């Protein structure tokens, strides 16, 4: 015990001692499972057949690369993330700017709370209810479409519409997050500079470019990064709405993964796909962080 207390005061050891808890978590819940997954990906382990592990080498990986379904799912996910996060950012930033000057608005707290409510809804509940909202017979979306435009759209049952339909729900759910980040980013701009710009009567565009963006860039990029990370993982929401269908119109990569692991119970195969997904994810993160100029900012 005395040794522990001493180490806490030892300037050389302290930094590392403080890191011990996080490292324990990291190793047990991240590194160990990851290694397990890497190992498993070289085997065939189909739980429901009761067969023992069978070493396959790279067969699982080969199977995945040759599987057009997987490439389609990756492609669908890729576009889901790009379009989704893109629109969420644009819309989020626009609305964030809109809300910027509202510090004195009556009931601002309530308005913002309502604005953020989509993020709080449990995805399973949201998915189920949007099924109802989109329903051609019982849903309000089609009711008003019929009233105002005289058309009916089978949002979730039509292969053409299912993908945009689920994308729309995702955008609705997470634009408020980007609004939040934008407000935070705008808030980080020093008031002094803004007032100076006001005095100098700088045009809006110049204010945006020279004052707001340089200061808020970091937070905005971080927001986009977080949103991209989460968007890539989308599963609950879409699975509940369409089960990845019709056909495979909305089969995102996370759904494919889920099927391999928990419908087919082919754990070796699922692990291989998981590793591939992880590598893609790491590639993405690296690129982003590079763009974020993280190191530069710290200096």
């Amino acid at each position, binding site marked *: 015990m005395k040794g522990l207390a001493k180490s806490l005061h030892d300037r050389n050891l302290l930094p590392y001692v403080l890191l011990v808890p996080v490292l324990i978590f990291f190793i047990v819940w991240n590194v160990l499972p990851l290694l397990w997954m*890497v*190992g498993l990906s070289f*085997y065939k382990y189909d739980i429901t057949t*009761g067969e023992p592990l069978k070493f396959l080498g790279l067969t699982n990986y080969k199977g995945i690369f040759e599987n057009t379904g997987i490439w389609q799912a990756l492609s669908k996910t890729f576009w889901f993330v790009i379009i989704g996060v893109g629109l969420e950012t644009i819309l989020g930033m626009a609305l964030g700017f809109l809300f910027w000057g509202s510090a004195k608005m009556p009931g601002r707290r309530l308005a913002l709370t309502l604005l953020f409510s989509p993020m709080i809804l449990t995805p399973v509940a949201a998915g189920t209810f949007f*099924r109802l909202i989109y329903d051609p017979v019982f849903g309000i979306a089609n009711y008003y479409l019929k009233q105002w435009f005289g058309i009916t759209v089978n949002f*979730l049952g039509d*292969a053409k519409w299912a993908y945009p339909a689920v994308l729309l729900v995702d955008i609705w759910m997470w634009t408020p997050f980007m609004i939040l980040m934008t407000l935070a980013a705008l808030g980080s701009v020093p008031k002094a500079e803004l007032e100076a710009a006001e005095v100098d009567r700088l045009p809006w565009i110049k204010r945006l470019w020279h004052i707001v963006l340089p200061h808020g860039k970091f937070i905005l990029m971080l927001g986009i990064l977080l949103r991209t990370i989460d968007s890539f993982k989308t599963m609950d929401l879409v699975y509940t709405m369409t089960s990845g*269908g019709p*056909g495979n119109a909305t089969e995102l990569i996370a759904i494919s993964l889920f099927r391999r692991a928990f419908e087919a119970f082919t754990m070796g195969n699922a692990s291989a796909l998981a590793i591939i997904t992880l590598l893609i994810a790491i590639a993405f993160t690296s690129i982003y962080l590079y763009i974020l100029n993280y190191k530069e900012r710290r200096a």
Partner: protein
Amino acid sequence: MKTKSVSIVVMLAILFTMILSACSGNKSDNGTPTSGGNSGGTSSTSGTSGGDEGSSPLAGKKIEMSILGIGGWLPSSLSVDMSPDFAAYAKEKYGYDVTFTFEEAPFTSLFQKAAASLSTKSQEFNIIISDSQWLGAFAEPGWIVSVNEIMEQEPELKNIEWFDPVVEKAYMTYPDGTDQLWGMPQEGDVMVLYVRKDLLSDPNEQANFKAKYGFDLPQTFEDFEKLTIDKYLKMAEFFTRPEQDLYGAAVQYSKEYDYFTGSLYPFIWSSGGEIWDQNTGDVYGVLNTENNAKALETMVSIKNYMPPGAENYGIAQITEAFTQGKLFSAYQWAAVGGAMVTPELQDKVLIVPIPGYEVNGEIRRITSIGGQPWVINKFNDEDHMRVAIDFLKWWYLPETQIEYAKRGGNPTTKAVLESPDFESIQPWFRAYKYSLTEERSRDFWHHPKYSEMLSVQQEAFTSYATGGEKDPLKTLETVACKQQQILYDAGTAKNAPPAACASVK
């Protein structure tokens, strides 16, 4: 220098984990059940087997049993609803107290929940209500108790006479075609046809129909026994009136779970087609035939007579549409009869066998078998195993089965189904009894790879139904190729997919 040591460490780590995974995998049981829990449970009861009066080794104990069943599915929850009767029975006969809890999950996730628990050798669920197609997936890893072995110890269970051999085939047997038994039927079920007889018996409708199509609307159960699919489609067309918010027919097209498949198979089978060759394990050449393509086409054509949003229709949607008065008829499971025939529709619904195909001058119909067997968790301790067996013995007593029938469940024992007033207990019992025979109903494959095969075809079929794939034969070929590969990899099929499948990946 640094990168070298890092890469050595990484390689060692990967090697280490491969070994680790290999070890963990081998820990799981394989194949046939060994003694352990099972014989432990039964040996202690050798004194009381045969269900004699007097106490059992469990006398005086308090036991909590848990049943995993399907959420929102009356037949499943009835097992727990009726358990107080069993508790009273057990108290009197064996001298122990027992309470039951019910865990549930919807169809789509029930197997996942059960498998995730069983593969940890957990006693979380003592009895599991499973869909009939999962018997293989539960049996192969050694997660459930062999019913053959139980029957050796419990002649009472062995002597139960089932209504028809199809009961044993569908709810108990794995692998298909052998005499190995792994489950016992909890709920019998077949797909039947629900029709609005108030619309059928309306004189105006009758007259108009006759004038337009040249034959009479069927009125009675016997009329429907003779109904063929082409005549049925005409009836569906006649009663499709969007302006009145009335539609002629309904089947299930949803990608979720097995909804599409369960609705499609009657069309394939009734027309003479097959979904696989049980003996060789071949799918290619068996599933993708002209006949089956036509069947698929016919089944999807029913969309024309359905409300908008048909592509999403599963069990729940059909129930909703039918009870809201939007449907003249619907293909639907007998098990949901209680929900389909609401108080408002009390005398307006006739439940009949599905339409048949005319083959060689005879009307032939083969409908899908649904329903659930229950299986006993292999990892139950002695006490829970004993109670589970006692419970099952009680379940199949005629009094229990009749009570089950009265509450809306579908029994499966010969004694009850052949009792004089059986058909009058529930409006769907006549159609149920009629269809529950080997000649008239069939189940899908009981293979451990069931889930994967199902998922493949659900995706392909829904793609066809929504216009993603235009050619029904090509759709079937895609499915056949993929399933042939799955079965070949699993060692069931001797033949690999033929060269024609190379383009399907």
